[in-house]
C-alpha cells in the first residue's frame, strides 16, 4: 500500500462491508460456538427474532417515533437559540467576551449529570427529555458557530467594506453566508451527539422510547432486544447523518472542492 494513494469507489464500499461481515462472523462464532453464555450475549439470529417481536408484539414503532421526536425536538430548540447567539458572538467581540467564558465552562458540564436535577424541576415528562438534549447540544453549537464566524476571511470582509457594506451588511451578507457550510457541518456533528444524550435521558425516569425498552430488557435479561435497540439507534443515526450530508451538498454547491 502506498501512503495517501486513493482507493476506488467499489473497492471502498467492499472494504467497508467486509468489516461489518467480519464483525458479525466473530459474534456468530462466539455465540453459536458456545464461547459466551446466551444469558450475557444473544446470537445474531435471536437478536433479529427479538427485534421482529418488538415491532409486532410490543408496539416498538411508537417508542422509536418518540425517541426520534425527542432528539429532533431538543436539537432544533438548541439550534434555533444557539446558532444566532453563536453568530452574534463570532461577529461582535464584546458579545463574545461577555458570553464565551461561561459557555466554555458550561459545555464541560455533563448533560447526563443534569438528569436528576431536571427530573426535580421538570418532572419525568417530555420537557425533561428535551432539556437534556438541549443542554447537551446548545453550548457546543454556540461555541463552534462563534469560532466559525470569527474565522471568516478578513480580506472578504475588507472587500465588502470597500463595496459600501455597513455593519449589518457585513454580518448578513458576508459572515453568515461564508460560515453557513461550516455551521451546517457543526449541526450534523452535534445531532450525532444528541442521539447519545437521548438514550441516557430515557434510561432514567422514562416510560417510553428506545432507551426505556433497553432498561426494561435488562431487567428481563433479554440481551437480544438490547442489542437490537443499540443497532437500531446506530442505523437511524447513520440515516440522519447521510440526509444531513446530502442536504449540505445541495445547499452549498459553491463550497465543495
Amino acid at each position, binding site marked *: 500500500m502506498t501512503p495517501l494513494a486513493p482507493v476506488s469507489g467499489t473497492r471502498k464500499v467492499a472494504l467497508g462491508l467486509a468489516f461489518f461481515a467480519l464483525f458479525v462472523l466473530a459474534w456468530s462464532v462466539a455465540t453459536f460456538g458456545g464461547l459466551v453464555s446466551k444469558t450475557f450475549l444473544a446470537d445474531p439470529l435471536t437478536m433479529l427474532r427479538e427485534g421482529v417481536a418488538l415491532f409486532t408484539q410490543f408496539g416498538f414503532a411508537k417508542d422509536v417515533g418518540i425517541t426520534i421526536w425527542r432528539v429532533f425536538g431538543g436539537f432544533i430548540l438548541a439550534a434555533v437559540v444557539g446558532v444566532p447567539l453563536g453568530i452574534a458572538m463570532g461577529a461582535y467581540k464584546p458579545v463574545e467576551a461577555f458570553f464565551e467564558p461561561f459557555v466554555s465552562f458550561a459545555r464541560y458540564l455533563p448533560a447526563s449529570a443534569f438528569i436528576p436535577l431536571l427530573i426535580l424541576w421538570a418532572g419525568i415528562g417530555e420537557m425533561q427529555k428535551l432539556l437534556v438534549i438541549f443542554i447537551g447540544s446548545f453550548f457546543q453549537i454556540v461555541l463552534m458557530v462563534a469560532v466559525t464566524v470569527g474565522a471568516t476571511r478578513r*480580506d*472578504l470582509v*475588507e*472587500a*465588502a*467594506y*470597500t*463595496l*459600501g*457594506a*455597513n455593519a449589518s*451588511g457585513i454580518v448578513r*451578507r*458576508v459572515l453568515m*453566508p*461564508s460560515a*453557513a457550510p461550516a455551521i451546517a457541518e457543526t449541526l450534523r456533528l452535534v445531532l450525532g451527539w444528541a442521539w447519545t444524550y437521548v438514550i441516557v435521558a430515557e434510561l432514567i425516569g422514562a416510560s417510553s422510547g428506545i432507551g426505556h425498552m433497553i432498561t426494561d430488557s435488562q431487567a428481563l435479561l433479554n440481551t437480544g432486544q438490547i442489542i437490537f435497540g443499540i443497532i437500531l439507534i446506530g442505523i437511524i443515526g447513520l440515516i440522519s447523518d447521510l440526509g444531513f450530508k446530502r442536504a449540505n451538498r445541495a445547499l*452549498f*454547491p*459553491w*463550497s465543495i*472542492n
Partner: protein
Amino acid sequence: MRPLAEQRSGESRERGGTLLSALTIDGVSRTFAGARGGQPVEALLPTTLAVDDNDFITILGPSGCGKSTLLRIVAGLDMPSRGDVQLDGHRVGGPGADRGMVFQSYTLFPWLTVVENIKFGLREKAMPAARQAEIAAHYVDKVGLAGFEHHYPKTLSGGMQQRTAIARALANEPRILLLDEPFGALDNQTRSLMQELLLSIWESERKTVLFVTHDIEEAIFMANRVIVMTARPGRIKAEVAVPLAHPRHYTIKTSPEFSALKAELTEQIRVEALKTAGPGA
C-alpha cells in the same frame, strides 16, 4: 476624541480648496506598534501626494516599502498615524463605496456567482434589481466574461477572478479605483492581457486610478505618472511622468521612449532593492 487630528483636517481642507485634486494625501505616515513590546515599526514616512481627475498613477516600490499600507489608508482599511487623506475635500474616516478596491488575493465571494459578485455593491445601495442586472451585464461584457455569468469563483482561473473583481469594483462607480498588485499572482501572459484590459477600460471610461505594483514595466505601461517609493520605511523618492500617447498598444513596450523610462526607473528601484537586500547582496 482626537482634537489634534480635527485641527489638522480643518487646516488642510482650506488648502484642498485651492488644489482642486480629486484625492489629496497629506503628510500621511504609519507606524505599527512593536510586537511583544518590541520597537515600533515605521512602515511609511510622511507622504504627500495629489491625484487629479482621470489620473492613472502607479506607485512603484520594492517589497515591504509601505506602498500597500498607503493604499489601504486611502481605502480607509487602515488609519494613518499622522496626516490625513481627503477625497473631494472630505476627510477619509473609513472604507466606503466611493473608493473601489481590487486586492492581490482573490476576494470574490465564493458563495456568489460572477454576476452576483458584480452586483454586490449595487445591492448594498438597494438599487432596483432591473438596474442592477443592466449594470452587471454591461461590466460582464466589458471585462470579457460573457458566458461565465453564472459560474462560481472556484471554477474560474486566477485571471478571470481578477477580471470579475475589477468589474465588481467598477460597477459600483467609485470616485477612484484602488488596485493593490491585482495581477501579482498571475502568470506573465495573463498579466499582460489584464494590463491591456484595464488600460482600455481606463481609456474609454476615464476613471481615476491609483495602482500599486513592484513591476516596472507594468508601472510604465499603464500610468501617466509613476511614483517611486524608497525601501522601508517608505517615502516618495521620485515622481516620473509618462508622456506616452494614448491609446497605448502593447507594442509600445519595445519602443525607445519606453525603454528609456524603464532604464531610468530600473536604476531608481535597484538602489532601493539593494538597501532591502542588505549588505553583501
